[in-house]
């Protein structure tokens, strides 16, 4: 046990050294291992089954990418280490070399591009409005004077604030402490709408007592490209990752992976998210790109 610990320390030391060399491919080849950053609970994108097992749409894509990297480097064996990260520590951990490739649910935006690099966009998230099916609400304009729920600590809070400012619509905002709590606000009638990422809304509606009671309505409030993240200024590694993902997009394998995680029952509870890919996501697969969120807003 002690030996492993010492080894881990030594590895960490080499890792932080290699971070400055900024050559992830060489680091992977020399060490025979790679560290993947994963999330404990990011919907079907990246989550844990417990016991150190991590799965999800982005995790599977990354495993595929790393298999390609292994082939490219001609390694007989490549050990993949999984490192759980949070919204707060994911960027520092990629920067300091603890994590080589982050496969969670990170939005690609200009602020973050100053610190890290993103692979081609694999999923385009749309911020939507969920309401009760019988509420008669069909657009954000009808929410004037109504209570709108969203979750503390998410970008949706800012999106809502910007919309309020831009359109002069006046909502009464209520903040849930997590997504389940926000959904309860909608369910119990304390809020008339729940504004959040479409995948999260779809997941919560699917898990509710009576999914037919709720629906997603209205315009897309914000579009956020979600991508796999890696260190900045390492063009060789970025190219290897991008090429592998682009090949998956071309062969249609990425659509199959999506189908597996978002339209089929998934572990551990064997429930379905039930969300077909949206048009923006399909467009990102058809024309692979790593445009930041700001470019989507201009359209």
């Amino acid at each position, binding site marked *: 046990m002690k030996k492993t610990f010492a080894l881990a320390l030594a590895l960490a030391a080499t890792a932080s050294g290699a971070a400055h060399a900024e050559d992830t491919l060489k680091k992977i080849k020399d060490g025979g291992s790679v560290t993947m950053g994963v999330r404990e609970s990011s919907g079907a994108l990246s989550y844990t089954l417990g016991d150190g097992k991590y799965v999800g749409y982005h995790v599977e894509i990354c495993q595929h990418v790393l298999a390609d990297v292994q082939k490219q480097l001609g390694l007989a064996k490549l050990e993949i280490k999984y490192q759980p990260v949070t*919204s*707060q520590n994911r*960027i520092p951990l990629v920067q300091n070399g603890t994590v080589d490739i982050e496969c969670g649910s990170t939005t690609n935006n200009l*602020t*973050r591009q100053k610190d890290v690099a993103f692979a081609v966009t694999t999923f385009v998230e749309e911020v939507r409005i969920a309401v009760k099916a019988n509420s008669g609400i069909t657009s954000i304009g009808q929410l004037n004077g109504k209570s709108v729920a969203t979750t*503390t*600590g*998410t*970008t949706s*809070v*800012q999106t809502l*604030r*910007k919309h309020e*400012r831009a359109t002069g619509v006046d909502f009464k*905002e*209520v*903040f*849930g*402490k997590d997504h389940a*709590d926000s959904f*309860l606000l909608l369910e*119990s009638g304390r809020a008339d709408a729940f504004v959040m990422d479409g995948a999260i809304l779809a997941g919560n509606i699917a898990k509710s007592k009576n999914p037919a009671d709720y629906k997603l309505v209205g315009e897309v409030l914000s579009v956020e490209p979600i991508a796999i993240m890696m260190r900045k200024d390492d063009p060789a590694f970025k190219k290897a990752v991008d090429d592998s993902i682009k090949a998956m997009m071309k062969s249609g394998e990425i659509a199959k992976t999506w189908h597996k995680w978002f339209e089929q029952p998934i572990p551990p509870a064997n429930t379905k998210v039930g969300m077909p890919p949206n048009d923006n996501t399909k467009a990102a697969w058809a024309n692979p790109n790593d445009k930041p969120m700001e470019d989507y807003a201009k359209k």
Partner: protein
Amino acid sequence: MANWDWQVFCKNTIDGEVIPRCLGSGGDISYLDWMLSAWGWTLSVALLALVVALLLGSLMGILRTVPHKGLVLLGNAWTELFRNIPLLVQVFLWYHVLPALVPVLKGLPSFVLVVFALGFFTSARIAEQVKAGIQSLPKGQRYAGLAMGFTLPQTYRYVLLPMAFRIVIPPLTSESMNIIKNSAVAFAVSIAELTMFAMQAQEETSRGIEIYLAVSGLYFISAFTINRIALAIEHRVQVPGMIGGSK
């Protein structure tokens, strides 16, 4: 550790541009504005809850020492009910469960509900301390008061409580400081107080360390001010020769 960015507090919460002079105007709000308003919410929740807690806690503490079984039972039941359920659970009961049972409560803003939740929770702890303060007095004091011809309420008012309250000022000070810190649970029911500000602003600005440091500082200042005020009161009301009265 050298890359601090304290300018984050001067940023506009809408577009992230730095506002000159840090405070927004004409509908623009900087993170500093937001934090100060959040501090206001924290203090409002905490101080109103403290008023509720002191009133109810004193009442229940007194009831637990009167020579009447029914009232003692009421005081004991109150104390055990509110101190044996976790605070966060109580907040959720007030917010989600009670309005479902009593529809009138639906109309109340969550601010009022959280003030009651926090006030009742703390009142149980204050009741315990007030009871202990009264019981620490020699029995003879009560008898002396009654023998003077005072009614029971008069005995409490003029003989027992003036001494009991002086004795329990130190634990009440801790409780008053706790209520400032405990008010952080209000974020869970959508009160825009400091903890909610910290969670939201660090996500929006990616400057978590600066935000959390500033928020911790404000909590410290708030609790420490309460501490100093309580100390001043303690010195002001002390009676020479009594417990805590020697100097």
